[in-house]
């Protein structure tokens, strides 16, 4: 039997007893691009952080290829939200990408030539090779996002978790990210992406996880991304325009 890259069972996360995620259970198939979609405060980022053990969970378990996450760290790559770090930090793009190698290098040792080569290759893949030596505060928002992506590539993982990689980037970067995601998929890697632009879900993702504190639905996008499911996920906040032919959705505040 082939093992699932991501297996989440009964995951509950609560801050101060108010549940943020409630008994979420799902299995992800291998080699798919999976979009995690849901309204603000639905626990999308929390789900990723809980899977990666960045925040304490109230209950439940997470397995990566059949084993506890702790023992499988090297198989996992992570792209945090761009706004989560201080971009005025004194370092350059290459250095940030090299951080993706730290998990492989181990304690005390410094990154070697091989690591630098891998990091440069990752920068090249996101079209940022020329910017390797540039101070990160001098990069545009889209370029910073690409550096984060390159760092995840340098982790050389098989399962990737990306937290809102499309937020605040230019159109060119969005295009670059999507082609990169498809490349990862072609290599048989599994990518889970927190996303909140409903317009592009059908275009970008094979599978969709609809989430609002609980799992609403999970499956191939064309089966799951339906008006019925979206209404369950977004409740009254979603207005449907032109539901027949090509639905476009408007989320109301």
């Amino acid at each position, binding site marked *: 039997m082939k093992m699932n890259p991501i297996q989440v069972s009964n995951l509950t996360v609560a801050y101060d007893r108010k549940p943020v995620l409630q008994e979420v259970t799902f299995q992800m198939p291998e080699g798919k691009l999976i979009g995690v979609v849901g309204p603000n405060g639905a626990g999308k980022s929390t789900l990723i*952080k809980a899977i*990666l*053990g*960045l925040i304490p969970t109230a209950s439940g378990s997470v397995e990566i290829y059949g084993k506890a996450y*702790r023992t499988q*760290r090297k198989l*996992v790559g*992570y792209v*945090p939200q761009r706004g*989560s*770090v*201080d971009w005025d*930090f*004194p*370092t*350059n793009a290459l*250095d*940030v990408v090299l*951080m993706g190698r*730290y*998990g492989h*290098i181990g*304690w*005390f*040792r*410094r*990154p070697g030539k091989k690591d630098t080569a891998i990091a440069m290759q990752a920068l090249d893949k996101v*079209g940022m090779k*020329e*910017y390797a030596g*540039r*101070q990160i505060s*001098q*990069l*545009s928002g889209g*370029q910073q996002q690409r550096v984060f992506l390159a*760092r995840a590539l340098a*982790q050389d993982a098989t399962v990737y978790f990306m937290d809102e990689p499309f937020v605040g980037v*230019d*159109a*060119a970067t969005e*295009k*670059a990210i999507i082609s990169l995601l498809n490349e990862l998929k072609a290599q048989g890697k599994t990518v889970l992406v927190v996303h909140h632009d409903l317009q592009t879900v059908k275009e970008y993702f094979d599978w969709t996880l609809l989430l609002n504190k609980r799992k609403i639905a999970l499956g191939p996008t064309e089966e799951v991304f339906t008006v019925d499911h979206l209404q369950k996920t977004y409740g009254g906040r979603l207005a449907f325009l032109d539901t027949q032919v090509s639905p476009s959705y408007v989320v109301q505040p």
Partner: protein
Amino acid sequence: MFYELLSTLQDANTQWVLLGTILLGIASGVLGSFALLRKQSLIGDAMAHAALPGICLAFLLYGTKSIGWFLVGAALSGLLATYFIQVIINHSRIKEDTAIGLVLSVFFGFGIVLLTKIAQTENGNQSGLDDFIFGQAASLVGNDVRVISAIAIVLLLVTWLLFKELKLFTFDRQFAKGIGLPTGLLNGLLMTLIVSAVVIGLQAVGVILMAAMLITPAISARYWTDRLDRMVIVAGTIGALSGMLGTILSSMANRLPTGPVIVLAATVIFLISLIFAPHRGLVSKGLKLYRIRKIVARETVLQTLYDLSEEVSITNKKIRFSKEALLSRRKMTVRKLDSNLKRLQKEGYVHHIKDMWSLTESGGSKAYEIVFNNRLFEIYTMYEMKFASLQFAANDVWDYRNIDSSTLKELEQLMAIHERTPKLAPKYFGKGETFRKENSSQSAKKRKKEVKSL
């Protein structure tokens, strides 16, 4: 003065003390860099102030001056203060700055009360505890220096060994945790390192000013470099220099407290960095702004002349323009316009008959280039998605000469579609009126329409 300096330096005790203050300057510069980047500079201040009651209690309990117990007392009450700050932040609506202010003053106040109490006891006068307020490097004895140096070296060694981990932890804590670094442990370790750096400096620099030793070298170093490894080295060097200068100056003057002198020395270095550092310094920034303004003003004048010429070329009017016409197209001060016209005339780009200005042939080709470049950029911004392969960092210069030929061709085609191609070739300005007559057959009507659409 010089002999005084020489004799000060020859004194064995001073040399010993110097070694101590230099090492502690390095340690506080290095760890201050991390504190600064973690935005914990003020925590250092709180810890230093809060150390005073710890030192006093250590003296009261142990009964005599002992560097070891002082350090333990200082570290414990410093950590207790940070713990209180955390508790206040976590369990009330009070924000960090307020919490720090509260805890810092309470601990310091308590320390002063204890200090006064000790001064009134029999052996209080010899306690030397007063030195801890403003710092007195000269009061360091051999044993003190040995302990301080040993701790400073350990701190530097740990930082060097764990540099990679501490860097990642400071930059991106979540990612660090994601790849399995024990972030809780690292946080505790870094906190301990910073507390230790503060504590070993207390006797030489004093509780009031110790935070400056943490902050000032680090922030000065930040001006000189954009890499953490270099920043740490520069900060350590600045810390060492300040420590050295402070110690020498204060031992030359009778009983001048060391702390203020060290801090003043560090501040002078900071001011130099603030003003003269390349890229980030005020002078460098000012020069850059001045240069940009100069280029923009010059390009504006040339571009305005070109635009006006382009419009007039379809009529029978002369392609000469008054200053008023230039000013009404693009506003700038009359003085700026005058000085730019004068400079451009000297360079042979413009000439004037009476008060009417026009471009020369070389000026025409210069202006053509500028206009071409700017309009190409307009087109690029319209089709940014299409030209995704062209990347420009936030502050890169747009120059069509850096674009590869096939992309350039595409952009030029688009420019033609949008009728933004500059229509006056440079040679036009050389030939002037005659050129226009030769080309009058050119569908003037179409040109008129195009120009109107501009």
